[in-house]
């Protein structure tokens, strides 16, 4: 087999490219949902416990719809469960941002604001996508995401414009996580093909509206936007930080230990 047939250079947005594109969205929601689930029983207050759990469940619901759709596109007999529980780390293509550890509550909130604002811009754009299923999934998810951003940005403003301690902590988390936002708006071949097919937006344009939204929130939260980092983590291409494997070992344990188990 020649190398060219192993790594095909695509010129069009075909079945396998569509599968990859949908899978990225699905994995990003799935891993973030799993991460937020770690707060259950540990959040700063009972009310926040439920608030974070609600967001987690919304995201896992979105992941289920997207994984099912990806499985249909792939047409290899894999359903949402097999895609979620039986793939290895290198086959996951979530954004590296969402696999980062929760840290303290403020750190979780910073990560959530960055991703909520991205999701809100993206899902809103999907209303004009040429992909009908994606349009339908986004129409449902965008309402959930609007609330997620309201929740997370509300907290970021409270913490950023709160005490000296809370301000210092969320600013440090923002400085730490900002480098992972470059990936959100750095297109690779699949992003470009998806854009050309009218399935996905131009990421540079998306970045403009995302940044506008983020700047408004940071301004109200009296936080300073960090400088951009040129290095890109390509989680969406399977290049992950050391944290993903640990999430998967938690998330996949049951299916790996008792294959096919149901309740």
């Amino acid at each position: 087999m020649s190398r060219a047939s192993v790594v095909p250079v695509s010129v069009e947005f075909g079945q396998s490219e569509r599968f990859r594109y949908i899978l990225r969205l699905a994995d990003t929601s799935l891993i973030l949902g799993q991460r937020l689930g770690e707060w259950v029983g540990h959040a700063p207050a009972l009310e926040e416990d439920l608030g974070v759990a609600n967001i987690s469940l919304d995201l896992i619901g979105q992941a289920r719809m997207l994984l099912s759709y990806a499985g249909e596109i792939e047409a290899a007999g894999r359903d949402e469960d097999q895609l979620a529980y039986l793939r290895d780390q290198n086959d996951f293509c979530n954004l590296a941002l969402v696999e980062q550890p929760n840290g303290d509550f403020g750190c979780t909130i910073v990560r959530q604001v960055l991703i909520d604002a991205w999701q809100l811009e993206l899902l809103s754009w999907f209303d004009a996508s040429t992909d009908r299923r994606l349009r339908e999934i986004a129409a449902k998810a965008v309402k959930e995401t609007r609330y997620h951003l309201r929740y997370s940005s509300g907290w970021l403003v409270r913490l950023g414009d709160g005490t000296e301690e809370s301000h210092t902590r969320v600013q440090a988390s923002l400085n730490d996580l900002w480098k992972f936002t470059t990936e959100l708006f750095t297109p690779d071949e699949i992003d470009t093909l998806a854009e050309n097919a009218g399935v996905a937006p131009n990421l540079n344009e998306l970045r403009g509206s995302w940044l506008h939204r983020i700047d408004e929130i940071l301004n109200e939260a009296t936080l300073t936007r960090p400088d951009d980092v040129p290095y890109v983590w390509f989680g969406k291409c399977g290049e992950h930080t050391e944290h993903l494997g640990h999430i998967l070992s938690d998330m996949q344990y049951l299916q790996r230990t008792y294959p096919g188990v149901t309740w």
Partner: protein
Amino acid sequence: MSDERQHWPLFEVFIRARAGLEHKHVGSLHAVDAKMALEHARDVYTRRMEGVSLWVVRSADITASDPDDADAFFEPAKDKIYRHPTFYEIPDEVKNI
């Protein structure tokens, strides 16, 4: 307000189940202010489509009757059965009474 920083104030939550119905008290929760209380109420009390509208009010802002006044407040109504509209037939079509 250092006590409020340690212990978030209590809010009472009222939900309107459907358009046309009144808001009903469903419980209470803690939040730092009314805005957060409304979001907490959404997260804690409307997870199963319980309602279409929410009210929150600080528990401290509610003036309650004193249990010691119960005799004076409520006893006198006990023997005035004629105040109950139980002598009317209510058509089946009329709901929520």
